[in-house]
C-alpha cells in the first residue's frame, strides 16, 4: 500500500512520477479520516493540502523538484501557520489564526511538501502524555488504551499509524523523544540553535527545540535537512551549516565509542526496557562500536532543576496571553485586572496554570536565589557532567524513558509522577545537546521500547549515522501496529 513506504521512498517515487502527489495526499487524508478516533489531529487542512498537492504535481511535471516536493507531512500545532488555525492544544488559542508562518513551516513549504494538518499536543507542550490537550487525549496506535507520550503525541500517533510518513515536533524536556519511544518511532531533538524557534509558540525559550518525528533515521535526517539552518529571525539560531545527507547517515560506526552512564541503567528502570536497550547495544558492538562505562553523577538533580527553569521561563513567556492582543478574552470582566485574571483562568488548563504558578513562585521576591539561581547552577553542573563523559566517549546511550507507554489516566492525578517520565531526557535539554530516540524492541505487552542516543553539541551526524546503520541490521523501525 502507498502508506507503507518511507518518506524518502515516497519522495523518490514522486520524483520518478510513479505516483502523483494528488493521489498520495488523497490517500493520506482518507486515512486521517478513517482513523480519526486516534484524535491525532486538531486541524485537517484538506483544501490546502489538495491544492498544494496539485501545485507539486505541476512542478514535478515540469521536471522540477525541491527536497520534499509533493510529500505529505503534518505539523505539531505549536508551529504558527498563516491562515490555518494554530491552537497549541489550548482553549486560549482555540480560534487563533496566525498572521505569519513559523520558519520551520516556511522551510517545508519551500521544500515543496504538502501539509495535511496540525497535530494534537499537550497544552502549550506541557505534559508527557498528551492528556493536557484542550482537544482531548490521543490514543497510542500500539494500544488504544495507552498514551502516545507527549507533548508531541499527535505527531507521534499520526506517524505510528502511517497517516503521514513524517511530522514535526518540539522538545523542551523530552517531548519529541518520549513520544517517539512510546510509539516505536525515530525522533530527533537537535542541538539547541540548530532549528529556528521563530513562530514556534514559546514554552521555555532556553530549552525549546523543534525536530522531526519519522519512522527511520534516514527519514529524520531528510526532515532535519529541511528544517535546520541559520535564521536571522531567531536570535539564538546557530550560524552553522547543516551537514549533508551523506554525512548525517554515513559517519562511520566502526570505532565509535558509546558511553553507558551507570545512572541510566539503574535498577529502578523497567527490566524489559533495559533488556531491549542492551540487545541493541550488542548490535552496535557487532557493527564495530565499543561500549564504555561513564557516569553522569548529577542526573537525578535534572528533574528538580528542570521543574524550576522550565516553569520560570513559561511564566514569563505565557504572560503575553492577556485577553487583549490575541487569544481567549473573558466575557466576564468589568475592570482591566478582571480581564487579565479571568481570561487567563478561563483560557489556560490546570497543568499550564500549575506551571505558571510554580514559575511565578520561583521568581518571586525572596525566593529567586533559593530556586531559580540554584537551578541555574545545577544546570551548569549537569552540562559539565556531560562534557566530562564525552571525554571518554562519542555518543551516550541509554533508555529514552524508564517505562513503555502507560495507560491513559494512570498519572493524571499526580503531576510529580508524570514529571519523572522525563528523567533521561530533560538533562539533554538543560545542556542544549542533540538527542535521538529510536525503536529497539518491544516489551511482553507488545509495546515499543526506545533507545536514546545523546551526542556532543552540533553532532547530530553521529547519532543519525549510528541509528541508520543499526536500522540496516534490524527491523524494529519497520514494525507496524495491528489494524493500520
Amino acid at each position, binding site marked *: 500500500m502507498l502508506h507503507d513506504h518511507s518518506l524518502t521512498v515516497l519522495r523518490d517515487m514522486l520524483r520518478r512520477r510513479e505516483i502523483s502527489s494528488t493521489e498520495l495526499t488523497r490517500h493520506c487524508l482518507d486515512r486521517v479520516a478513517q482513523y480519526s478516533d486516534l484524535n491525532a489531529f486538531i486541524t485537517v487542512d484538506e483544501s490546502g493540502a489538495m491544492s498544494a498537492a496539485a501545485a507539486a504535481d505541476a512542478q514535478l511535471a515540469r521536471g522540477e523538484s525541491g527536497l520534499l516536493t509533493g510529500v505529505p507531512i503534518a505539523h505539531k500545532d505549536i508551529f504558527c501557520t498563516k491562515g490555518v488555525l494554530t491552537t497549541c492544544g489550548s482553549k486560549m488559542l482555540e480560534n487563533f489564526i496566525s498572521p505569519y508562518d513559523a520558519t520551520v513551516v516556511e522551510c517545508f513549504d519551500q521544500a515543496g511538501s504538502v501539509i495535511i494538518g496540525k497535530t494534537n499536543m499537550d497544552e502549550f507542550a506541557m505534559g508527557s502524555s498528551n492528556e493536557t490537550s484542550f482537544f482531548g487525549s490521543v490514543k497510542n496506535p500500539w494500544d488504544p488504551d495507552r498514551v502516545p507520550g507527549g507533548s508531541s503525541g499527535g505527531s507521534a500517533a499520526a506517524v505510528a499509524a502511517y497517516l503521514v510518513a513524517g511530522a514535526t515536533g518540539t522538545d523542551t524536556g523530552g517531548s519529541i523523544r518520549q513520544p517517539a519511544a512510546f510509539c516505536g518511532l525515530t525522533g530527533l531533538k537537535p542541538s539547541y540553535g540548530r532549528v529556528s524557534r521563530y513562530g514556534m509558540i514559546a514554552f521555555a525559550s532556553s530549552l525549546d527545540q523543534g525536530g522531526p518525528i519519522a519512522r527511520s533515521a534516514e527519514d529524520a535526517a531528510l526532515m532535519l535537512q529541511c528544517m535546520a539552518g541559520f535564521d536571522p529571525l531567531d*536570535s539564538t539560531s546557530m550560524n552553522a551549516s547543516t551537514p549533508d545527507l551523506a554525512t548525517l547517515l554515513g559517519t562511520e560506526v566502526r570505532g565509535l565509542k558509546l558511553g553507558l552512564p551507570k545512572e541510566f541503567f539503574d535498577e529502578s528502570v523497567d527490566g524489559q526496557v533495559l533488556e531491549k536497550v542492551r540487545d541493541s547495544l550488542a548490535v552496535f558492538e557487532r557493527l564495530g562500536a565499543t561500549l564504555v562505562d561513564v557516569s553522569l553523577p548529577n542526573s537525578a538533580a535534572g528533574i528538580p532543576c528542570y521543574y524550576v527553569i522550565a516553569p520560570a521561563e513559561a511564566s514569563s513567556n505565557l504572560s503575553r496571553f492577556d485577553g487583549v492582543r490575541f487569544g481567549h478574552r473573558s466575557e466576564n470582566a468589568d475592570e482591566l485586572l478582571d480581564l487579565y485574571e479571568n481570561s487567563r483562568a478561563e483560557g489556560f488548563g490546570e497543568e499550564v496554570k500549575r506551571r505558571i504558578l510554580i514559575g511565578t513562585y520561583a521568581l518571586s521576591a525572596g525566593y529567586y536565589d533559593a530556586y531559580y539561581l540554584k537551578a541555574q547552577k545545577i544546570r551548569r553542573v549537569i552540562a559539565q557532567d556531560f562534557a566530562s563523559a564525552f571525554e571518554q566517549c562519542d555518543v551516550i546511550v541509554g533508555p529514552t524513558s524508564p517505562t513503555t507507554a502507560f495507560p491513559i489516566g494512570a498519572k493524571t492525578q499526580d503531576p510529580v509522577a508524570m514529571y519523572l517520565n522525563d528523567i533521561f531526557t530533560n538533562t539533554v535539554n538543560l545542556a542544549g545537546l542533540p538527542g535521538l530516540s529510536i525503536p529497539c524492541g518491544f516489551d511482553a505487552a507488545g509495546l515499543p521500547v526506545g533507545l536514546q542516543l545523546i551526542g556532543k553539541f552540533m553532532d547530530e551526524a553521529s547519532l543519525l549515522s549510528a541509528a541508520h546503520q543499526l536500522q540496516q541490521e534490524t527491523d524494529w523501525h519497520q514494525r507496524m501496529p495491528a489494524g493500520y
Partner: protein
Amino acid sequence: MLPFLQFPPSRKTVSISEKDVLRVAHLARIRVSKDELGRYQEGLSGILSLVEQMHDCNTDGVEPMAHPQDIQLRLREDQVTESDRRDAMQESAPKVGEGLYLVPRVIE
C-alpha cells in the same frame, strides 16, 4: 518514584499555604476560585517538595548557567526591519476599534 541510587532524595516536604497560592496567583494574573484553591495548594506543594531535592546537589563556586550556548547574543544593526502590519496583527485580536486594542475603562 524513580530516584537514582547515588542521589538520596530529600526527605523534606514543603507545604505552601492558601495565602501563598493566592499571592502567586495574583502575581501571575490568574483567578483561582475557592474550589480550586485546595487542588493548587496540593499540586504546588508536591512540586516544591520535588524541587527541594535540588539542595542535595552541591553547587559551591558554580557559576549559574542561563543558556545552553555560553556565547553573547547576536546583535544587529539598529535599523527598522519591520513594516507596518497593524491590520494583519489586529485580525487575531478579540476586540479592536479604530486600530486600537480595546480594554475595560481604566481612567474615569
